[in-house]
């Protein structure tokens, strides 16, 4: 198709080229989602002007596999050519028994993004006849929020989960609706609420993270840690530290990332953790101290003040707790005298493996 249009630069020239193409080729261009939308729309309009009744009939129903794919192609042509006419046909397609037809309708309504289209997509999200993550891709916009708010009271966990995932607490009504879902019986919904707050950050994110940090479900605890991290409230670091001992790898990792995000404010609670009974907690604390630059800073200070014994002991504790990987990374992060000092401390350690 490209070489036919190479010399046609204006829409009028492109239309003239398209009008000369055989109907089959034109149909291919109009129904192919990979083709530039403006060119597809121009081709669709030409086809629709020629035979509207036939296209509407083909877009409305199918009897077999071959007709199904023709219907899907025609749905796109009609949607691109005449939005108003297409809407009831797309609504009918959304309730079709065939998943491919439903998927085509979802995609076309998603590309449309009008209020009517968004309302239909939210209906489809609630009835669950097509993968919700696919529909959600088109509802991830502020404009969809008014249609999504009623879903927070939906009886199905999955629907509330998607409402919680798609709503953003940037507007007051959405924030209140999400806060209400923080006590939802479904852990997936609670985790989604935390994720939505974490995406925006700020005090509300930190507060909701604090409330759910002891949740019995591990993935809720992991999201709560992330919400605290993105909340940026240094007073909550002590709430995160116990999660370094969590039985779940993902929770420990989330806690480490959150502590690293909170930066130097976490250091005072992490230093005692370097001698914790739990090996995971010791490792985690050392990793965070490395990530926040604390180890490099202490090493630089120790190089300047070689007699500061407590400081050397603290660095040694971090290096021992972190093991080989932390030691390698710490050495790579510093240069000159600081590097020499660190190398000496590592050499002096009786056993470099901590876990």
């Amino acid at each position, binding site marked *: 198709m490209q070489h036919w249009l190479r010399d046609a630069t204006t829409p009028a020239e492109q239309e003239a080229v398209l009008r000369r193409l055989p109907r089959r080729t034109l149909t291919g261009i109009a129904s192919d989602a*990979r083709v530039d939308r403006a060119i597809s729309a121009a081709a669709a309009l030409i086809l629709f002007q020629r035979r509207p009744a036939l296209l509407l009939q083909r877009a409305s129903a199918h009897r077999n596999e071959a007709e199904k*794919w023709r219907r*899907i192609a025609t749905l796109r042509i009609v949607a691109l050519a005449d939005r108003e006419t297409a809407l009831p046909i797309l609504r009918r397609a959304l309730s079709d028994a065939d998943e491919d037809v439903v998927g085509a309708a979802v995609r076309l309504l*998603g590309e449309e993004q009008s209020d009517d289209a968004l309302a239909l997509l939210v209906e489809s999200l609630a009835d669950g006849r097509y993968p919700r993550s696919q529909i959600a891709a088109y509802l991830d916009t502020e404009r969809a929020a008014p249609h999504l708010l009623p879903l927070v009271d939906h009886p199905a966990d999955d629907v509330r989960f998607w409402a919680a*995932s798609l709503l953003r607490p940037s507007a007051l009504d959405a924030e209140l609706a999400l806060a209400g879902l923080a006590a939802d019986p479904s852990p997936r919904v609670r985790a989604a609420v935390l994720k939505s707050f974490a995406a925006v950050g700020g005090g509300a994110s930190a507060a909701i993270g604090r409330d759910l940090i002891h949740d019995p479900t591990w993935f809720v605890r992991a999201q709560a840690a992330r919400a605290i991290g993105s909340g940026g409230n240094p007073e909550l670091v002590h709430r995160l530290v116990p999660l370094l001992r969590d039985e779940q790898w993902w929770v420990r990792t989330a806690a480490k990332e959150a502590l690293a995000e909170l930066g130097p404010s976490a250091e005072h609670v992490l230093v005692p953790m370097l001698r914790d009974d739990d090996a995971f907690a010791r490792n985690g604390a050392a990793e965070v101290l*490395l*990530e926040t630059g604390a180890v490099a800073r202490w090493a630089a200070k120790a190089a300047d003040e070689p007699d500061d014994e407590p400081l050397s002991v603290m660095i040694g504790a971090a290096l021992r707790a972190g093991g080989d990987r932390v030691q390698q990374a710490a050495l*790579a992060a510093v240069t000159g005298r600081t590097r020499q000092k660190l190398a000496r401390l590592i050499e002096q350690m009786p056993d470099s493996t901590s876990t």
Partner: protein
Amino acid sequence: MREFLFVATGVCLAYFVAAFGAYALLLVFAALDNAISSRDARADDLRALEESRFTIPVSVLVPVYNEAAVIRHVVAALRDLRYPELELVMAVDGSTDGTLEILRADLQLEPVARFERHIVDTKPVREVLRSRVDPRILVVAKENGGKADALNCALNYARYRYVCCVDGDTIYLPEALLNTMRLVVRDPKSIVGITGHIAVAMQPERLTVDADGRAMVENKLIANFQHIEYLRAFLNARLAWSRLGFMLCASGAFAIWRRDLLEELGGFSTEYTCEDIEFTFRAHEHLRRTGVDYRILSTPQIAARTEGPGTIRALVRQRERWQRVTLEVIWSYRRMLLRRRYGVVGFVGMPFFLLTEVLAPPMELVSIVTLVLGIAYRVFDVRVYAVFLASVAMANAIMTSAAILLEDISTRAFRLDHLARLVVLGPLEVLVYRPVLVWARLKGFWRFLRKERSWETFDRNPRLASR
């Protein structure tokens, strides 16, 4: 002797009719799958998938061993993959040719204290490095343990629910992940594995396209015949296997697996010459035995270009190894053959592999010996044999043309005159290329019987300046 030759001829003929019949039947299903997949791909909206934060993230596992010649191009292609959320976990498997140093300099690697989740035992890790220029990249330098060990090591560091196993010497197309994951996101519960179509090139990092962006086939016979062979393997065979539910070989060059399955099965096995086909068999065996509803799929869209051998010697070495590993795996999983519990895998997939992979080398040998003896004892009329050979060549050409047609329908990537060149080469394949493969397969069969497990190094083709 005459009677023996007649019987042997009859057996060979029966075998060839059965094999061609099986391929012809598969072609019908492949054409059906290709037609549906192509229509579906045209109707799909990759932009929404690419931009959505709800698209399932993917960890790309890249085993790397002595790839200094191509690693820059491979990393560039992987970084250009169009996908909303991915991480690249590169396991440098004790490379001795400076691959790690290239990565260290280009990606500005720095040590990082990232601890792995110890899922599978691997050779010791020497260093874990993070890229300063692209935070999505993690490089794990480890002691040499082979490709399966490197993949397992990368798996230990992977964070996402789906992992995409790739080769460290293959160039990936930007849409590779989107074209495959678009099917996974529709049905993540049952799709446990998916693979794409791999194209072959002598120098995959060199893009050979004309002014209209149409791909051109290479001007080298060995490349053309491999191109034809890959088309037939990926389009005529794998699409049909995928449609029929026995996709028994997800190519190691590009295979996406659900991580929970990999973890459940203990990762990739280091006991076999190649890990990809073995894991696919193991996945089918396990999932069928446990009664899980699952799908392993293959798509017709090209995902990557891999480097094919540029000499007959290298080609024989590669195909000998493929033959050996196929036999190793079929032998290991022979319990699936004709067992009800394994359904279509046991009743269709395994017999098909038995017919076309296990029996092929001995049958090809028998047919050659029969031919020589038949001519020596004047049992065969040379003219009759020529007609027979011509029929085989034409049957082969029909398969080749069908594969080229399927390729053109699904991708429209190649120039028509270049596809015509491949069509013309189709009938010659039996005379020019097939004997080399027969020799390689016989060697593979012999080395399988001797229980050899070696993996000889792949000699890179000489590099021309990139365009």
